Protein backbone atom coordinates (compact mmCIF):
# COMPACT_ATOMS: atom_id res chain seq x y z
CA UNK A 1 0.00 0.00 0.00
CA UNK A 2 1.33 3.43 -0.89
CA UNK A 3 1.86 6.05 1.73
CA UNK A 4 -0.81 8.37 0.40
CA UNK A 5 -3.46 5.68 0.45
CA UNK A 6 -2.63 4.91 4.08
CA UNK A 7 -3.02 8.61 4.87
CA UNK A 8 -6.30 8.69 2.99
CA UNK A 9 -7.58 5.70 4.91
CA UNK A 10 -6.62 7.35 8.15
CA UNK A 11 -8.40 10.56 7.13
CA UNK A 12 -11.44 8.56 6.15
CA UNK A 13 -11.59 6.89 9.55
CA UNK A 14 -11.04 10.18 11.32
CA UNK A 15 -13.90 11.78 9.42
CA UNK A 16 -16.19 8.88 10.19
CA UNK A 17 -15.31 9.12 13.85
CA UNK A 18 -16.05 12.82 13.89
CA UNK A 19 -19.36 12.21 12.18
CA UNK A 20 -20.35 9.62 14.76
CA UNK A 21 -19.38 11.92 17.63
CA UNK A 22 -21.37 14.82 16.13
CA UNK A 23 -24.46 12.67 15.57
CA UNK A 24 -24.12 11.11 19.02
CA UNK A 25 -23.89 14.54 20.63
CA UNK A 26 -27.09 15.69 19.01
CA UNK A 27 -28.90 12.52 19.97
CA UNK A 28 -27.57 12.64 23.53
CA UNK A 29 -28.86 16.19 24.03
CA UNK A 30 -32.27 15.20 22.69
CA UNK A 31 -32.40 12.08 24.85
CA UNK A 32 -31.37 14.05 27.92
CA UNK A 33 -34.08 16.64 27.20
CA UNK A 34 -36.81 14.07 26.69
CA UNK A 35 -35.55 12.06 29.67
CA UNK A 36 -35.63 14.95 32.14
CA UNK A 37 -39.01 16.06 30.82
CA UNK A 38 -40.40 12.58 31.33
CA UNK A 39 -38.89 12.46 34.81
CA UNK A 40 -40.44 15.79 35.75
CA UNK A 41 -43.69 15.76 33.88
CA UNK A 42 -44.99 12.29 33.19
CA UNK A 43 -46.75 12.11 36.58
CA UNK A 44 -49.00 15.01 35.52
CA UNK A 45 -49.90 13.50 32.16
CA UNK A 46 -53.42 12.21 32.54
CA UNK A 47 -56.82 12.75 31.05
CA UNK A 48 -57.71 15.48 33.54
CA UNK A 49 -54.60 17.42 32.59
CA UNK A 50 -55.46 17.22 28.88
CA UNK A 51 -59.10 18.18 29.38
CA UNK A 52 -58.78 20.64 32.26
CA UNK A 53 -58.95 24.42 32.04
CA UNK A 54 -57.18 27.21 33.83
CA UNK A 55 -57.05 26.97 37.61
CA UNK A 56 -55.49 28.75 40.55
CA UNK A 57 -54.30 25.37 41.77
CA UNK A 58 -51.46 23.85 39.85
CA UNK A 59 -52.70 20.31 40.44
CA UNK A 60 -56.07 21.16 38.91
CA UNK A 61 -54.83 23.21 36.00
CA UNK A 62 -55.09 21.65 32.57
CA UNK A 63 -54.14 22.46 29.02
CA UNK A 64 -57.41 22.10 27.14
CA UNK A 65 -57.73 25.80 26.19
CA UNK A 66 -54.10 25.82 25.05
CA UNK A 67 -54.47 22.55 23.18
CA UNK A 68 -57.62 23.67 21.40
CA UNK A 69 -56.03 27.08 20.80
CA UNK A 70 -52.97 25.50 19.24
CA UNK A 71 -55.10 23.26 17.02
CA UNK A 72 -57.28 26.16 15.89
CA UNK A 73 -54.35 28.42 15.31
CA UNK A 74 -52.59 25.78 13.23
CA UNK A 75 -55.65 25.10 11.09
CA UNK A 76 -56.30 28.79 10.55
CA UNK A 77 -52.65 29.52 9.85
CA UNK A 78 -52.48 26.63 7.40
CA UNK A 79 -55.63 27.80 5.59
CA UNK A 80 -54.14 31.25 5.20
CA UNK A 81 -50.52 30.40 4.48
CA UNK A 82 -50.68 27.30 2.29
CA UNK A 83 -52.67 28.61 -0.69
CA UNK A 84 -50.79 31.91 -0.77
CA UNK A 85 -47.38 30.36 -0.17
CA UNK A 86 -47.74 27.57 -2.71
CA UNK A 87 -49.23 29.91 -5.31
CA UNK A 88 -46.41 32.41 -4.79
CA UNK A 89 -43.85 29.62 -5.05
CA UNK A 90 -45.40 28.40 -8.30
CA UNK A 91 -45.51 31.90 -9.72
CA UNK A 92 -41.88 32.65 -8.89
CA UNK A 93 -40.58 29.32 -10.15
CA UNK A 94 -42.77 28.64 -13.16
CA UNK A 95 -44.04 31.96 -14.38
CA UNK A 96 -41.95 34.87 -13.19
CA UNK A 97 -38.62 33.34 -14.08
CA UNK A 98 -37.00 35.71 -16.42
CA UNK A 99 -37.94 39.12 -15.13
CA UNK A 100 -36.14 41.41 -12.77
CA UNK A 101 -39.05 41.67 -10.36
CA UNK A 102 -38.81 37.93 -9.69
CA UNK A 103 -35.12 38.26 -8.89
CA UNK A 104 -35.84 41.11 -6.49
CA UNK A 105 -38.65 39.15 -4.84
CA UNK A 106 -36.46 36.08 -4.51
CA UNK A 107 -33.78 37.89 -2.52
CA UNK A 108 -36.36 39.46 -0.25
CA UNK A 109 -38.26 36.26 0.38
CA UNK A 110 -35.06 34.50 1.36
CA UNK A 111 -34.31 37.39 3.70
CA UNK A 112 -37.80 37.28 5.18
CA UNK A 113 -37.35 33.61 5.99
CA UNK A 114 -34.52 34.64 8.29
CA UNK A 115 -36.20 37.57 10.06
CA UNK A 116 -36.59 36.98 13.84
CA UNK A 117 -40.14 35.98 14.68
CA UNK A 118 -40.66 38.81 17.14
CA UNK A 119 -40.43 41.26 14.24
CA UNK A 120 -43.41 39.48 12.71
CA UNK A 121 -45.13 39.95 16.05
CA UNK A 122 -44.62 43.70 15.84
CA UNK A 123 -45.83 43.72 12.25
CA UNK A 124 -48.90 41.70 13.18
CA UNK A 125 -49.61 43.98 16.14
CA UNK A 126 -49.67 47.07 13.98
CA UNK A 127 -51.24 45.59 10.87
CA UNK A 128 -53.83 43.15 12.15
CA UNK A 129 -54.46 43.99 15.79
CA UNK A 130 -54.54 47.79 15.40
CA UNK A 131 -55.11 48.83 11.78
CA UNK A 132 -57.49 45.99 10.95
CA UNK A 133 -59.04 46.11 14.46
CA UNK A 134 -58.84 42.36 14.96
CA UNK A 135 -57.43 42.98 18.44
CA UNK A 136 -55.87 40.19 20.43
CA UNK A 137 -57.90 37.55 18.59
CA UNK A 138 -57.26 34.23 16.93
CA UNK A 139 -57.41 35.89 13.57
CA UNK A 140 -54.57 38.25 14.42
CA UNK A 141 -52.54 35.32 15.69
CA UNK A 142 -53.20 33.20 12.61
CA UNK A 143 -52.51 36.04 10.19
CA UNK A 144 -49.25 36.83 11.97
CA UNK A 145 -48.09 33.21 12.02
CA UNK A 146 -49.16 32.84 8.40
CA UNK A 147 -46.90 35.76 7.48
CA UNK A 148 -44.14 34.19 9.53
CA UNK A 149 -44.21 30.86 7.71
CA UNK A 150 -45.11 32.23 4.29
CA UNK A 151 -41.47 32.67 3.19
CA UNK A 152 -40.64 29.18 4.43
CA UNK A 153 -43.49 27.68 2.37
CA UNK A 154 -42.57 29.73 -0.68
CA UNK A 155 -38.93 28.66 -0.51
CA UNK A 156 -39.87 25.00 0.09
CA UNK A 157 -42.32 25.06 -2.81
CA UNK A 158 -39.75 26.55 -5.15
CA UNK A 159 -37.06 24.11 -4.10
CA UNK A 160 -39.39 21.15 -4.72
CA UNK A 161 -40.48 22.50 -8.09
CA UNK A 162 -36.83 22.86 -9.02
CA UNK A 163 -36.27 19.15 -8.46
CA UNK A 164 -38.76 18.31 -11.23
CA UNK A 165 -36.63 17.78 -14.32
CA UNK A 166 -37.10 20.09 -17.31
CA UNK A 167 -37.74 16.99 -19.42
CA UNK A 168 -41.10 16.47 -17.66
CA UNK A 169 -42.15 20.01 -18.54
CA UNK A 170 -40.97 19.59 -22.13
CA UNK A 171 -42.85 16.32 -22.50
CA UNK A 172 -46.02 17.99 -21.33
CA UNK A 173 -45.68 21.04 -23.56
CA UNK A 174 -44.88 18.81 -26.52
CA UNK A 175 -48.30 17.17 -26.10
CA UNK A 176 -50.05 20.49 -26.51
CA UNK A 177 -50.44 21.23 -22.81
CA UNK A 178 -50.71 24.80 -21.62
CA UNK A 179 -48.45 26.12 -18.90
CA UNK A 180 -51.17 25.80 -16.31
CA UNK A 181 -51.94 22.19 -17.34
CA UNK A 182 -48.25 21.39 -17.18
CA UNK A 183 -47.82 22.93 -13.76
CA UNK A 184 -51.01 21.64 -12.19
CA UNK A 185 -51.02 18.14 -13.66
CA UNK A 186 -47.35 17.22 -13.99
CA UNK A 187 -44.96 19.53 -12.16
CA UNK A 188 -46.90 20.09 -8.96
CA UNK A 189 -47.84 16.41 -8.46
CA UNK A 190 -44.24 15.43 -9.12
CA UNK A 191 -43.06 18.00 -6.58
CA UNK A 192 -45.94 17.35 -4.18
CA UNK A 193 -44.01 15.32 -1.63
CA UNK A 194 -41.47 18.07 -1.17
CA UNK A 195 -44.10 20.80 -1.04
CA UNK A 196 -46.06 18.89 1.60
CA UNK A 197 -42.95 18.27 3.66
CA UNK A 198 -42.09 21.96 3.52
CA UNK A 199 -45.58 22.95 4.58
CA UNK A 200 -45.63 20.59 7.54
CA UNK A 201 -42.18 21.61 8.70
CA UNK A 202 -43.22 25.25 8.42
CA UNK A 203 -46.32 24.54 10.49
CA UNK A 204 -44.33 22.69 13.09
CA UNK A 205 -42.15 25.75 13.34
CA UNK A 206 -45.24 27.91 13.82
CA UNK A 207 -46.61 25.59 16.48
CA UNK A 208 -43.69 26.33 18.77
CA UNK A 209 -43.67 30.10 18.29
CA UNK A 210 -44.14 32.12 21.44
CA UNK A 211 -42.54 35.53 20.98
CA UNK A 212 -44.78 36.97 18.25
CA UNK A 213 -47.88 35.75 20.04
CA UNK A 214 -46.89 37.50 23.23
CA UNK A 215 -46.41 40.71 21.27
CA UNK A 216 -49.84 40.49 19.64
CA UNK A 217 -51.49 39.83 22.96
CA UNK A 218 -52.35 36.16 23.26
CA UNK A 219 -53.71 35.56 26.78
CA UNK A 220 -53.11 32.74 29.19
CA UNK A 221 -56.18 32.55 31.39
CA UNK A 222 -58.90 31.95 28.83
CA UNK A 223 -61.64 29.42 28.35
CA UNK A 224 -61.97 27.24 25.26
CA UNK A 225 -62.50 29.65 22.34
CA UNK A 226 -65.60 29.64 20.15
CA UNK A 227 -64.85 31.98 17.27
CA UNK A 228 -61.90 33.41 15.39
CA UNK A 229 -62.43 36.73 17.16
CA UNK A 230 -62.09 35.24 20.65
CA UNK A 231 -59.02 35.65 22.77
CA UNK A 232 -56.93 32.52 22.91
CA UNK A 233 -53.89 30.85 24.29
CA UNK A 234 -51.52 28.25 22.86
CA UNK A 235 -49.29 25.57 24.33
CA UNK A 236 -45.95 27.42 24.16
CA UNK A 237 -47.51 30.40 25.94
CA UNK A 238 -49.05 28.21 28.59
CA UNK A 239 -45.67 26.61 29.14
CA UNK A 240 -43.94 29.96 29.29
CA UNK A 241 -46.45 31.17 31.83
CA UNK A 242 -46.12 28.11 34.07
CA UNK A 243 -42.35 28.10 33.94
CA UNK A 244 -42.17 31.71 35.01
CA UNK A 245 -44.06 30.98 38.24
CA UNK A 246 -42.24 30.34 41.49
CA UNK A 247 -44.21 27.25 42.64
CA UNK A 248 -42.62 23.90 41.88
CA UNK A 249 -45.99 22.34 41.06
CA UNK A 250 -46.32 24.59 38.01
CA UNK A 251 -42.91 23.45 36.86
CA UNK A 252 -44.27 19.92 36.73
CA UNK A 253 -47.22 21.19 34.71
CA UNK A 254 -44.85 22.90 32.30
CA UNK A 255 -42.83 19.71 31.81
CA UNK A 256 -46.01 17.77 31.08
CA UNK A 257 -47.21 20.41 28.62
CA UNK A 258 -43.82 20.40 26.89
CA UNK A 259 -44.17 16.64 26.48
CA UNK A 260 -47.54 17.16 24.80
CA UNK A 261 -46.10 19.84 22.52
CA UNK A 262 -43.15 17.59 21.65
CA UNK A 263 -45.46 14.71 20.81
CA UNK A 264 -47.48 16.97 18.49
CA UNK A 265 -44.31 18.23 16.79
CA UNK A 266 -42.92 14.72 16.39
CA UNK A 267 -46.24 13.55 15.00
CA UNK A 268 -46.26 16.36 12.46
CA UNK A 269 -42.70 15.62 11.39
CA UNK A 270 -43.56 11.94 11.21
CA UNK A 271 -46.53 12.81 9.02
CA UNK A 272 -44.23 14.81 6.77
CA UNK A 273 -41.90 11.83 6.34
CA UNK A 274 -44.81 9.46 5.79
CA UNK A 275 -46.39 11.68 3.13
CA UNK A 276 -43.08 12.16 1.36
CA UNK A 277 -42.43 8.43 1.22
CA UNK A 278 -45.94 7.63 0.11
CA UNK A 279 -45.72 10.26 -2.59
CA UNK A 280 -42.41 8.90 -3.81
CA UNK A 281 -43.62 5.30 -3.87
CA UNK A 282 -46.77 6.30 -5.75
CA UNK A 283 -44.67 7.89 -8.45
CA UNK A 284 -42.22 5.02 -8.65
CA UNK A 285 -44.72 2.20 -8.62
Amino acid at each position, binding site marked *: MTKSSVVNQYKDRLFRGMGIVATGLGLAVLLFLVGTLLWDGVQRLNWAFLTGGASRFAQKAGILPALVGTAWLMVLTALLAIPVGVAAGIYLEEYG*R*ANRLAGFLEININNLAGVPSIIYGLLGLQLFARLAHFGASFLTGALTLALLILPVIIVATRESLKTV*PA*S*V*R*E*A*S*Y*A*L*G*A*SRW*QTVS*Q*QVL*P*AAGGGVLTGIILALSRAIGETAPLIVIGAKVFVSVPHSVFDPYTVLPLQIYNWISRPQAAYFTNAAAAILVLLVITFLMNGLAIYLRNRWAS*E*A*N*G
Partner: protein
Amino acid sequence: MDKPMPDTSIPKIDAQHVNFFYGPKQALADVSLPIAANRVTALIGPSGCGKSTFLRLLNRMNELLPNTRMEGTILLDGQNIYAPDYDVYELRRQVGMVFQKPNPFPKSIFDNVAYGLTINKLKSGTALVEAVEAALRQADLWDEVKDSLKNSALALSGGQQQRLCIARALAIQPTVILMDEPTSALDPIATDVIEKLIAELKKTYTVVIVTHNMQQASRVSDTTAFFYLGKLIEVNTTKELFEHPHEEKTHSYLSGHFG
Protein backbone atom coordinates in the same frame (compact mmCIF):
# COMPACT_ATOMS: atom_id res chain seq x y z
CA MET B 1 -35.87 1.15 -47.36
CA ASP B 2 -38.40 2.38 -49.88
CA LYS B 3 -37.12 3.44 -53.22
CA PRO B 4 -36.96 7.21 -53.30
CA MET B 5 -39.78 8.49 -55.41
CA PRO B 6 -39.90 11.86 -57.07
CA ASP B 7 -42.05 14.01 -54.87
CA THR B 8 -44.17 16.44 -56.78
CA SER B 9 -46.74 17.01 -54.06
CA ILE B 10 -46.66 19.95 -51.65
CA PRO B 11 -44.26 19.19 -48.78
CA LYS B 12 -45.80 18.43 -45.39
CA ILE B 13 -43.45 20.91 -43.76
CA ASP B 14 -41.65 23.68 -45.58
CA ALA B 15 -39.01 25.71 -43.79
CA GLN B 16 -38.06 28.87 -45.66
CA HIS B 17 -35.03 31.04 -44.89
CA VAL B 18 -34.97 30.23 -41.20
CA ASN B 19 -32.57 32.04 -38.90
CA PHE B 20 -32.40 31.29 -35.21
CA PHE B 21 -30.56 32.99 -32.36
CA TYR B 22 -29.76 32.03 -28.79
CA GLY B 23 -29.19 35.52 -27.44
CA PRO B 24 -26.53 37.04 -29.65
CA LYS B 25 -25.36 33.66 -30.96
CA GLN B 26 -26.76 32.60 -34.30
CA ALA B 27 -27.57 28.89 -34.31
CA LEU B 28 -29.22 28.60 -37.71
CA ALA B 29 -28.48 30.66 -40.82
CA ASP B 30 -30.83 30.80 -43.77
CA VAL B 31 -32.04 27.21 -43.59
CA SER B 32 -34.59 26.21 -46.21
CA LEU B 33 -35.77 22.63 -46.10
CA PRO B 34 -38.94 21.05 -47.46
CA ILE B 35 -39.98 17.87 -45.69
CA ALA B 36 -42.06 15.32 -47.59
CA ALA B 37 -45.15 13.69 -46.13
CA ASN B 38 -45.03 10.03 -45.09
CA ARG B 39 -41.29 9.91 -45.36
CA VAL B 40 -38.54 9.67 -42.80
CA THR B 41 -36.23 12.66 -42.98
CA ALA B 42 -32.97 12.40 -41.06
CA LEU B 43 -31.07 15.45 -39.85
CA ILE B 44 -27.38 14.71 -39.39
CA GLY B 45 -24.28 16.69 -38.56
CA PRO B 46 -21.70 17.19 -35.81
CA SER B 47 -22.66 18.40 -32.32
CA GLY B 48 -23.73 22.02 -32.26
CA CYS B 49 -24.54 22.12 -35.96
CA GLY B 50 -28.11 23.22 -35.35
CA LYS B 51 -29.94 20.03 -36.25
CA SER B 52 -31.70 19.70 -32.89
CA THR B 53 -32.43 23.42 -32.86
CA PHE B 54 -34.04 23.07 -36.27
CA LEU B 55 -36.10 20.08 -35.14
CA ARG B 56 -37.39 21.96 -32.11
CA LEU B 57 -38.49 24.83 -34.32
CA LEU B 58 -40.96 22.52 -36.03
CA ASN B 59 -43.18 22.33 -32.94
CA ARG B 60 -42.08 25.67 -31.51
CA MET B 61 -40.39 24.12 -28.49
CA ASN B 62 -37.54 26.59 -28.72
CA GLU B 63 -39.76 29.46 -27.74
CA LEU B 64 -39.94 28.00 -24.23
CA LEU B 65 -36.31 29.05 -23.84
CA PRO B 66 -35.61 32.63 -22.82
CA ASN B 67 -33.70 35.04 -25.07
CA THR B 68 -34.25 33.28 -28.33
CA ARG B 69 -35.31 34.72 -31.66
CA MET B 70 -36.54 33.11 -34.83
CA GLU B 71 -36.75 34.60 -38.28
CA GLY B 72 -38.22 33.14 -41.44
CA THR B 73 -41.22 30.99 -42.16
CA ILE B 74 -42.11 27.39 -41.44
CA LEU B 75 -45.19 26.09 -43.19
CA LEU B 76 -47.14 23.10 -41.99
CA ASP B 77 -49.71 22.01 -44.58
CA GLY B 78 -49.23 25.39 -46.20
CA GLN B 79 -49.83 27.46 -43.06
CA ASN B 80 -47.15 29.48 -41.30
CA ILE B 81 -46.81 28.05 -37.82
CA TYR B 82 -45.03 31.21 -36.70
CA ALA B 83 -47.91 33.47 -37.70
CA PRO B 84 -49.11 35.39 -34.63
CA ASP B 85 -52.59 33.89 -34.75
CA TYR B 86 -51.38 30.29 -35.18
CA ASP B 87 -52.45 28.18 -32.20
CA VAL B 88 -49.25 26.73 -30.73
CA TYR B 89 -51.16 24.13 -28.68
CA GLU B 90 -52.89 22.88 -31.80
CA LEU B 91 -49.51 22.81 -33.53
CA ARG B 92 -48.06 20.57 -30.83
CA ARG B 93 -51.05 18.25 -31.12
CA GLN B 94 -50.31 17.97 -34.84
CA VAL B 95 -46.55 17.64 -34.42
CA GLY B 96 -45.59 15.13 -31.74
CA MET B 97 -42.13 14.86 -30.24
CA VAL B 98 -39.93 12.11 -28.84
CA PHE B 99 -36.91 13.26 -26.86
CA GLN B 100 -33.32 12.18 -26.57
CA LYS B 101 -33.65 10.71 -23.12
CA PRO B 102 -36.83 8.78 -22.40
CA ASN B 103 -38.86 11.19 -20.28
CA PRO B 104 -42.01 9.46 -19.08
CA PHE B 105 -44.06 11.32 -16.49
CA PRO B 106 -43.60 9.97 -12.97
CA LYS B 107 -47.04 8.39 -13.21
CA SER B 108 -48.58 5.12 -14.27
CA ILE B 109 -48.11 3.71 -17.77
CA PHE B 110 -51.78 4.33 -18.50
CA ASP B 111 -51.70 7.92 -17.28
CA ASN B 112 -48.65 8.63 -19.40
CA VAL B 113 -50.44 7.71 -22.60
CA ALA B 114 -53.79 9.14 -21.52
CA TYR B 115 -52.39 12.54 -20.53
CA GLY B 116 -52.34 14.09 -23.99
CA LEU B 117 -55.86 12.86 -24.63
CA THR B 118 -57.33 14.11 -21.38
CA ILE B 119 -55.74 17.57 -21.38
CA ASN B 120 -56.89 18.14 -24.93
CA LYS B 121 -60.31 16.71 -24.02
CA LEU B 122 -60.07 14.35 -26.96
CA LYS B 123 -61.20 11.16 -25.25
CA SER B 124 -62.72 9.95 -22.02
CA GLY B 125 -64.22 6.80 -20.51
CA THR B 126 -64.02 3.63 -22.60
CA ALA B 127 -62.92 5.57 -25.67
CA LEU B 128 -59.91 6.72 -23.66
CA VAL B 129 -59.06 3.17 -22.60
CA GLU B 130 -59.31 2.02 -26.21
CA ALA B 131 -57.19 4.90 -27.49
CA VAL B 132 -54.48 4.14 -24.91
CA GLU B 133 -54.43 0.50 -25.97
CA ALA B 134 -54.28 1.45 -29.65
CA ALA B 135 -51.35 3.80 -29.05
CA LEU B 136 -49.46 1.22 -27.02
CA ARG B 137 -50.02 -1.35 -29.74
CA GLN B 138 -48.81 1.09 -32.37
CA ALA B 139 -45.65 1.66 -30.36
CA ASP B 140 -45.18 -2.10 -30.08
CA LEU B 141 -45.38 -2.00 -26.31
CA TRP B 142 -48.85 -3.35 -25.55
CA ASP B 143 -47.94 -7.01 -25.06
CA GLU B 144 -45.24 -6.09 -22.56
CA VAL B 145 -47.34 -3.77 -20.42
CA LYS B 146 -50.98 -4.81 -20.83
CA ASP B 147 -51.04 -6.42 -17.38
CA SER B 148 -49.25 -3.59 -15.63
CA LEU B 149 -50.90 -0.44 -16.93
CA LYS B 150 -51.32 0.87 -13.40
CA ASN B 151 -47.64 0.43 -12.57
CA SER B 152 -45.25 3.35 -12.65
CA ALA B 153 -43.71 4.15 -16.01
CA LEU B 154 -40.39 4.69 -14.26
CA ALA B 155 -40.17 0.96 -13.54
CA LEU B 156 -39.88 0.16 -17.26
CA SER B 157 -36.56 -0.40 -19.01
CA GLY B 158 -35.03 2.43 -21.04
CA GLY B 159 -36.16 0.98 -24.34
CA GLN B 160 -39.67 0.40 -23.03
CA GLN B 161 -39.76 3.93 -21.63
CA GLN B 162 -38.84 5.33 -25.02
CA ARG B 163 -41.54 3.29 -26.72
CA LEU B 164 -43.95 4.54 -24.06
CA CYS B 165 -42.93 8.08 -24.99
CA ILE B 166 -43.63 7.24 -28.62
CA ALA B 167 -47.04 5.80 -27.65
CA ARG B 168 -47.73 8.95 -25.66
CA ALA B 169 -46.96 11.06 -28.72
CA LEU B 170 -49.01 8.84 -31.04
CA ALA B 171 -52.06 8.77 -28.76
CA ILE B 172 -53.20 12.27 -29.72
CA GLN B 173 -52.96 11.29 -33.39
CA PRO B 174 -50.48 13.81 -34.70
CA THR B 175 -49.52 13.91 -38.36
CA VAL B 176 -45.83 14.54 -37.81
CA ILE B 177 -43.46 12.87 -35.32
CA LEU B 178 -40.23 14.61 -34.40
CA MET B 179 -37.51 12.45 -32.87
CA ASP B 180 -34.47 14.00 -31.25
CA GLU B 181 -31.79 11.29 -31.14
CA PRO B 182 -34.38 8.83 -29.82
CA THR B 183 -31.99 5.91 -29.40
CA SER B 184 -28.85 7.63 -28.13
CA ALA B 185 -29.58 6.50 -24.56
CA LEU B 186 -30.52 2.95 -25.53
CA ASP B 187 -28.69 -0.34 -26.02
CA PRO B 188 -28.40 -1.88 -29.52
CA ILE B 189 -31.34 -4.25 -29.08
CA ALA B 190 -33.70 -1.54 -27.88
CA THR B 191 -32.39 0.66 -30.70
CA ASP B 192 -33.24 -2.02 -33.23
CA VAL B 193 -36.81 -2.24 -31.92
CA ILE B 194 -37.24 1.52 -32.22
CA GLU B 195 -35.79 1.61 -35.72
CA LYS B 196 -38.24 -1.07 -36.88
CA LEU B 197 -40.98 0.99 -35.31
CA ILE B 198 -39.91 4.08 -37.24
CA ALA B 199 -40.19 2.15 -40.51
CA GLU B 200 -43.74 1.22 -39.48
CA LEU B 201 -44.63 4.76 -38.43
CA LYS B 202 -43.89 6.42 -41.74
CA LYS B 203 -46.86 4.66 -43.31
CA THR B 204 -49.08 6.92 -41.22
CA TYR B 205 -46.88 9.79 -40.15
CA THR B 206 -44.27 12.16 -41.42
CA VAL B 207 -41.16 11.46 -39.38
CA VAL B 208 -38.24 13.82 -38.81
CA ILE B 209 -35.36 12.30 -36.88
CA VAL B 210 -32.18 13.87 -35.57
CA THR B 211 -29.40 11.36 -35.22
CA HIS B 212 -25.73 11.25 -34.40
CA ASN B 213 -25.48 7.82 -35.80
CA MET B 214 -24.92 7.82 -39.55
CA GLN B 215 -25.67 4.12 -39.90
CA GLN B 216 -28.99 4.82 -38.27
CA ALA B 217 -29.72 7.63 -40.72
CA SER B 218 -28.93 5.37 -43.64
CA ARG B 219 -31.04 2.54 -42.20
CA VAL B 220 -34.20 4.42 -41.32
CA SER B 221 -34.47 7.49 -43.50
CA ASP B 222 -35.60 8.27 -47.03
CA THR B 223 -34.15 11.74 -47.13
CA THR B 224 -31.11 13.05 -45.28
CA ALA B 225 -30.18 16.64 -44.56
CA PHE B 226 -26.65 17.47 -43.47
CA PHE B 227 -26.17 20.46 -41.17
CA TYR B 228 -22.87 22.08 -40.37
CA LEU B 229 -22.23 25.20 -38.25
CA GLY B 230 -25.85 26.31 -38.42
CA LYS B 231 -26.15 25.91 -42.15
CA LEU B 232 -27.93 23.31 -44.20
CA ILE B 233 -25.10 22.06 -46.38
CA GLU B 234 -26.83 19.42 -48.43
CA VAL B 235 -30.10 17.56 -48.67
CA ASN B 236 -30.85 14.61 -50.86
CA THR B 237 -32.32 11.14 -50.87
CA THR B 238 -30.45 9.18 -48.24
CA LYS B 239 -28.98 6.77 -50.78
CA GLU B 240 -27.71 9.55 -52.98
CA LEU B 241 -26.33 11.64 -50.13
CA PHE B 242 -24.42 8.76 -48.61
CA GLU B 243 -23.11 7.37 -51.88
CA HIS B 244 -22.53 10.52 -53.88
CA PRO B 245 -22.33 13.56 -51.64
CA HIS B 246 -22.12 16.69 -53.75
CA GLU B 247 -20.52 18.92 -51.17
CA GLU B 248 -16.98 18.60 -49.95
CA LYS B 249 -18.06 19.08 -46.30
CA THR B 250 -20.66 16.33 -46.54
CA HIS B 251 -18.08 14.02 -47.97
CA SER B 252 -15.55 14.65 -45.24
CA TYR B 253 -18.19 14.34 -42.50
CA LEU B 254 -19.45 11.04 -43.87
CA SER B 255 -15.94 9.69 -44.11
CA GLY B 256 -15.32 10.59 -40.49
CA HIS B 257 -12.99 13.54 -40.83
CA PHE B 258 -14.83 15.58 -38.22
CA GLY B 259 -17.79 15.36 -35.92
